[in-house]
């Protein structure tokens, strides 16, 4: 093909106007990528890769999601293997004031201790 790009000018079998069919699974399945920036940190979800299998998914994850970031480890998992809540149900995560028993602020002991100490001193 006549091209200003010598790389393209050299290609054999390149023809304008011939449109190939892209098959339904030509790019494999998707894998979710988890990236750990530092030892001691959690792996965090950073995106997706298309790959024919987990081994290549890892090979790809490293360059697509690790090439500019500090990285010590990565995971990939098939998207199909992830279970998630529907967003429709996200109201169930809303918290009511009664949940104060789970919060540190829900426990105030200092008053009792002070009162006890005062009583002992008498």
């Amino acid at each position, binding site marked *: 093909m006549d091209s200003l790009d010598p790389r*393209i000018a050299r290609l054999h079998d390149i023809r304008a106007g*011939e449109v190939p069919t892209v098959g339904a699974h030509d790019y494999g399945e998707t894998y979710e990528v988890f990236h750990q920036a530092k030892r001691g940190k959690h792996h965090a979800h950073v995106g997706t890769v298309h790959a024919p299998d987990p081994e290549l998914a890892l090979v790809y994850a490293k360059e697509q999601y690790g090439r500019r970031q500090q990285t010590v480890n990565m995971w990939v998992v098939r998207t199909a293997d992830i279970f998630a809540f529907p967003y429709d149900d996200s109201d169930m995560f809303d918290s009511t004031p009664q949940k104060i028993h789970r919060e540190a602020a829900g426990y105030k002991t200092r008053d009792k201790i002070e009162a006890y100490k005062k009583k002992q001193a008498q």
Partner: protein
Amino acid sequence: MYGGGYIPEEEKRKQQHMEEDPAKLAEFEARIDNGEKIEPHDWMPAEYRKQLIRMIEQHAHSEIIGSLPEGTWITRAPSFKRKMALIAKVQDEIGHGQLLYNAAETLGKSREQMMQDLLTGKSKYSNVFNYPAKTWADVAVIGFLIDAAAIVNQVANSKGSYGPYSRALERICYEESFHLKQGHDAFVALATGTESQRAMLQDAVNRWYRPIIHFFGPSDKDSVHTGKLMRWKVKMMTNDAMRNQFLSSYVPKVWELGLSFPDPKLHKDDNGEWHFSDPNWDEFYQVIKGNGPCNAERLAVRSWVETQHKWIREALFNPNAKYTLPLS
């Protein structure tokens, strides 16, 4: 890189007739008004989904096709620094395509289908990449000015309402700042270099001026359609506002180097608004239709990629593969 988000007229007419459940629509719009993001499995109006797919898909195609004009100079970049920067930049653009196809996939269209629609010409991409990169100076102009224009567009869109698109754009904008820097560096090197380098650069600026004015698309500030897309935070700024922002930031940076644009009418008025000569929107529509100088080559290259590697896909094909939309 990216431009426009062009919507054909007939498409606009079709969309006016879609009816949505008013209660769900109200809840959806309230979420957007609240500054919350929409996530992939949320209820969303059909038109919102459709417009987002179109826009993100066009953006993704623009990234991978956009790698071709600059790729023209990969084997000829004139120093280690330029060679490494150019390969890394083109690689980033492919990476942007990858991120954006993923974001579009969360809305229900597979990457395979998007690629097919690109190859048949059904889906569009930014016109600017249908122009040739004739000299090394074109690489500098693209890396500086086209990436700058893309940044204006992408920074605006990153504040949009769709979660996966915003997330992808955040990372993309971070990488674009490197593109802009290296582009400006190459641009300044030519502008402050020898006579022949300056001449080469001025010639490239002249040739890219019209595609750059076209980049943000025709004026759409009076379109009803734009109003709705802005209401839903699919589109964040009008084409004119983006173009004006771009011209304000970058025209002075070209002028300060003693270079010019081939348009005597180009100037900023006292209200900060830029004016320019009629950029021949007819040419813009012609290029969209496939009649630009490089449309055929760009698509031939992507078709070659698919055909050439068919045997690899067949060898790796997994009959048990299950198609699942990416999660986020």
